């Protein structure tokens, strides 16, 4: 099984349906298949085992994704926002092969030897041209992809260090798709807007899911909230996936412009902790939309747990249990197992916190330097959390971020949620800093709402009134901004470093915590 077969099936079952692009004049599944096959033939004629892409969303993404599978090469989408040092390291790691880049991508680094640069336009020209008709000698038969071929290499966001290349094999991506998507289940009028970048696992899985479901793909080259809203309206988009920071910015546009996205039916979100205020506002503004919270990792071929529309709707009508569950990642997919393990490695019971482990055919848990699955096939996510009695998964954040104060494990996310509920707080980050008495102390960095004033003592009291006193920050620093990865994940490591070097301050606003240009 390989992802190219998914496209073949869609072309077989709905060849004339629009697969890609605008409602009228878009590319059909039959045409997409032809272009992808041409792309594969061209890739097969190029040196190396990898097909790199340094670009935003464009027609080149699905053609390289499916074409690579056909040519038995790994598709390697690379972030065009990497700092020069990291980009140099990633490109060197690509080895010999092709790199397709945006027309205006001025490479900040020299290309390593053996890597051939093609512009997006040059690549698309290659894909549009059918290979010359076979001459006297018969054409070589297309290589038969193996389920063990590497389909995609993704450099993970690495909130805790240098990027690592996660390996996703054909059998894992296809297991994810056929385990979660019903073939051609989308109505012919459905369209999915892809605005997460192609080097994000959600950008890859959205293409595969849409093709297998028979849902037309509409792309936004790079996310900008007003352009996103316009495209939803213009292209009658019914489905979309966003990360929390994107949703917050979309809401700002909805509130400012009065847009309500009448065509949208389904909005899934994931890729980071969703602030309660953001999702509650979205539910209120868009009552006609089904919301889905999806939890997954690059290493698990995307989603492993979902909180579905029903749970979101129960919250909207004021169900108390649903309010609590709205902060959960929902329940595991039927095709994966999730287990919580304590520090001793033993499975933890309901309600007991520990590390999230996952097992299933879609779970890759592999990097270029080797597999990370344990003997039983389980992958350690390094995420902390617990399962409640009904099997809902609650996440506390990265295991490395847990604050250990006097032997008690404290979740920064829980404290941040309380801080964010304060009307004067726009953003909040909680980290543990060394403490001679308690081992670690809870320290918060807060970005105030514009025009609001609040002091540290008031915020400390706010937390103390809502959580146990051990969770109250011993220090609250006010900053102009917090560092995030491009996909909106808070860079707690960076916050910890910067707060650790700051001397204790009063309540005046200090300088911002600078975003880390290296971080991604």
């Amino acid at each position, binding site marked *: 099984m390989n992802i190219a*077969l998914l496209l073949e099936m869609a072309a077989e079952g709905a060849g004339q349906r629009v697969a890609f692009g605008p409602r009228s004049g878009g590319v059909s599944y039959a045409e997409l298949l032809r272009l992808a096959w041409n792309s594969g033939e061209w890739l097969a004629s190029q040196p190396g085992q990898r097909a790199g892409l340094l670009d935003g969303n464009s027609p080149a993404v699905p053609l390289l994704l499916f074409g690579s599978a056909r040519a038995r090469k790994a598709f390697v989408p690379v972030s065009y926002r990497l700092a020069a040092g990291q980009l140099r390291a990633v490109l060197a790691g690509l080895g010999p092969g092709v790199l397709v880049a945006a027309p205006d991508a001025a490479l900040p680094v020299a290309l390593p030897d053996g890597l051939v640069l093609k512009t997006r336009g040059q690549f698309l020209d290659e894909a549009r041209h059918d290979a010359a008709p076979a001459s006297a000698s018969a054409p070589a038969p297309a290589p038969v992809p193996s*389920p063990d071929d590497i389909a995609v290499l993704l450099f993970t966001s690495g909130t805790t260090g240098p990027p690592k290349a996660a390996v996703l094999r054909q059998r894992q991506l296809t297991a994810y798709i056929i385990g*979660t998507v019903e073939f051609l289940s989308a109505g012919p009028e459905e369209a999915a807007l892809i605005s997460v970048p192609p080097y994000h696992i959600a950008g890859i899985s959205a293409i595969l*899911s849409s093709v297998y*479901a028979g849902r037309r793909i509409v792309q936004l080259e790079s996310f900008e909230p007003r352009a996103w809203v316009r495209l939803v309206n213009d292209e009658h988009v019914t489905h979309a996936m966003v990360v929390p920071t994107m949703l917050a910015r979309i809401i700002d546009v909805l509130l400012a412009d009065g847009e309500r996205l009448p065509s949208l039916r389904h909005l899934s979100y994931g890729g980071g902790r969703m602030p309660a205020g953001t999702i509650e506002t979205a539910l209120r503004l868009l009552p006609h939309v089904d919301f889905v919270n999806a939890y997954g990792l690059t290493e698990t071929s995307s989603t492993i747990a979902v909180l579905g529309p029903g749970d979101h709707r129960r919250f909207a009508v004021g169900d108390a249990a649903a309010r609590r569950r709205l902060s959960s990642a929902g329940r595991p997919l*039927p095709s994966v197992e999730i287990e919580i393990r304590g520090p001793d490695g033993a499975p933890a019971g309901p309600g007991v916190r520990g590390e999230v482990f996952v097992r299933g055919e879609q779970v890759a848990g592999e990097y270029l330097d080797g597999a990370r699955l344990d003997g039983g096939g389980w992958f350690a996510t390094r995420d902390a959390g617990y399962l409640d009695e009904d099997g809902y998964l609650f996440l506390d954040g990265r295991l490395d971020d847990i604050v250990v104060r006097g032997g008690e494990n404290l979740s920064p996310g829980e404290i941040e949620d309380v801080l964010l509920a304060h009307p004067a707080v726009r953003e909040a980050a909680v980290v543990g800093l060394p403490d001679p008495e308690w081992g670690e102390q809870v320290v918060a960095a807060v970005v105030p709402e514009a025009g609001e004033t609040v002091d540290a003592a008031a915020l400390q009291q706010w937390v103390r009134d809502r959580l146990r006193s051990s969770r109250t920050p011993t220090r609250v620093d006010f900053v102009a901004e917090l560092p995030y990865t491009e996909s909106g994940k808070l860079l707690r490591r960076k916050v910890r470093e910067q707060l650790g070097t700051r001397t204790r301050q009063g309540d005046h606003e200090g300088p911002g915590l600078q975003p880390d240009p290296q971080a991604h």
Partner: protein
Amino acid sequence: MDLKPGSRWRSAVCDAEVVVVRSPAASVTFRIGGIGALPAETGRPDGVEPHVALAGGTLLGKRYADEVSGLEVLCTKAGTGTITVDGRRATVMTPRQLPASD
């Protein structure tokens, strides 16, 4: 026949093609339209038709399962033959009701 996951098979009597999603617990006889399925890369023999009693059809994109052996296949190309496993008709698995998450 080695029905390992990811292996592809075609009918000897119609256009049907399948990919194995889950292997059987033990060796089985896997047929489409009453005749043993062939590896996908094999050509279809001429002039053979599905057995009349086993011409119910195999539908593109449907997953077929045999509970007894545990074999599960996905139909990647439709055909007129019916899938049988050790003589038992494979059943169409019911669609999953999962919300789109990406």
